[in-house]
């Protein structure tokens, strides 16, 4: 039952959603709206499952003996608890603990974490980005034109640079991306069809 039923559900719902696209009749819309609701509710639970897994993982470490890792797992659990209690019971608007922690802990740290990349880009530019063949040369030249063309200095060097950047973005780069999109669209249609027909079962775990 736990093997056959999911395949049957996939087939039934997949087919309904596919056909519904072509049918404007209200009878199909009502069921359609209900299904959209259901999916969002179940999906919200699945997100909570992910969070639970993480909590479980760190709860094990926090209660274990690994003195090196323990304090960090305890930090995670503390963070979760404080934020959860604050958000669920004491409001989320301005002036609340939840809002303060979001503004002064979560947001700045997350943004800083990503800004580390600007440093890594700089060192990789010197040590890693190599024009090792003609393809890489094309890539780097396009990159440099775009980088110059999108800043004021590019315009100062030559008025052709921003124009060249515009052209690259609107013509060859755009068209190549379109080719990729069409390929991805076909790939998605093929995968979706396999899911609906029940021949793609990787999501069920194991083949």
């Amino acid at each position, binding site marked *: 039952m736990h093997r056959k039923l999911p395949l049957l559900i996939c087939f039934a719902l997949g087919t309904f959603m596919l056909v519904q696209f072509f049918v404007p009749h209200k009878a199909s819309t009502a069921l359609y709206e209900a299904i959209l609701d259901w999916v969002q509710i179940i999906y919200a639970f699945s997100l909570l499952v992910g969070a639970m897994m993480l909590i479980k993982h760190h709860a094990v470490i926090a209660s274990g003996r690994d003195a090196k890792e323990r304090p960090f797992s305890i930090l995670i659990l503390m963070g979760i608890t404080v934020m959860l209690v604050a958000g669920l019971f004491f409001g989320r608007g301005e002036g609340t603990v939840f809002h303060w922690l979001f503004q002064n802990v979560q947001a700045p740290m997350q943004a800083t974490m990503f800004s580390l990349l600007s440093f890594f880009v700089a060192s990789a530019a010197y040590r890693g980005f190599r024009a090792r063949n003609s393809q890489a040369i094309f890539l780097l030249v396009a990159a*440099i034109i775009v980088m110059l063309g999108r800043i004021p200095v590019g315009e100062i060097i030559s008025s052709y640079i921003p124009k060249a950047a515009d052209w690259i973005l609107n013509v060859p780069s755009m068209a190549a991306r379109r080719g990729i999109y069409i390929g991805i669209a076909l790939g998605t249609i093929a995968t979706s069809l396999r899911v609906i027909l029940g021949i793609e079962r990787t999501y069920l775990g194991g083949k």
Partner: protein
Amino acid sequence: MGQNDKNKMGIQGRHFIFILMAIVVAAPLIFRVGLPLRVTAEVRQVYGFLDRLPPHSAVIFSFDHETSTLPEMVPLAEALLRHCFRKNLKVFGMALLAEGAAVGDDNLRRIGSEYDKKYGEDYLFWGFRPQFTTAILALGERIDHEFPSDYTGQDIRSFPVMEGIENYKDIAAVITVGDGDIPVYWVNYAQARYGVKIIPAVTAVMATTMYPFLQSGQLVGLAAGLKGAAEYEMLIGKPGRAVKGMDAQSGAHIFVIILILVGNTVMIAGRRRKGR
């Protein structure tokens, strides 16, 4: 032993580049030059479209990003929000990623108060919905069914700003402030299926992936990255942090280009030496 020394050198060299990078960005922030900015056609299209909307048209701001890209997302959202509030458009906020919810609510209230707008009368924040495909589709049927209450938990039908708003047919444009693929989902599921106008305000990383939809007319325009925000700030005549950051952006681009050129020269020279 020799190898170990080399590693140490490598790490030190890397630190040297890090420090230079910090200086290259920090110095122009402190000592501003004010290099002239060129406004691109893509950003002008966004501005022109919003500018031509009749007053009280409804727009959705969907905050489809996480906090990691705030330095790019907030200036973009601010500039576009200022324009919409100044034009007296009805602004509805929502988020398809959880972290966008707190950011969006905050932005709407902050910029709304700059223009004396009232929550619930001029603008409203609906909140967060997971599973973006189904959320985008559901808004095409009935908005008050998808969001029965706003972010603060009050009945959505109790707000006067919701009057006459049923689904996408009452929405002039969706502005998706996104740092990932979600703007593409808006195109696939809202633009194609319901004919909604989509305006992507995205991180620079996502810019190149928007062009195919821009050329095909599936997008109204494109405002990308801090540079896009700076251009928009110029267009609405309210230069802010994005404009102030553009000197630093210029400096850092030149620095990275120089590093690439020097790095490659060193490699070619090294190869020649080995060749002999």
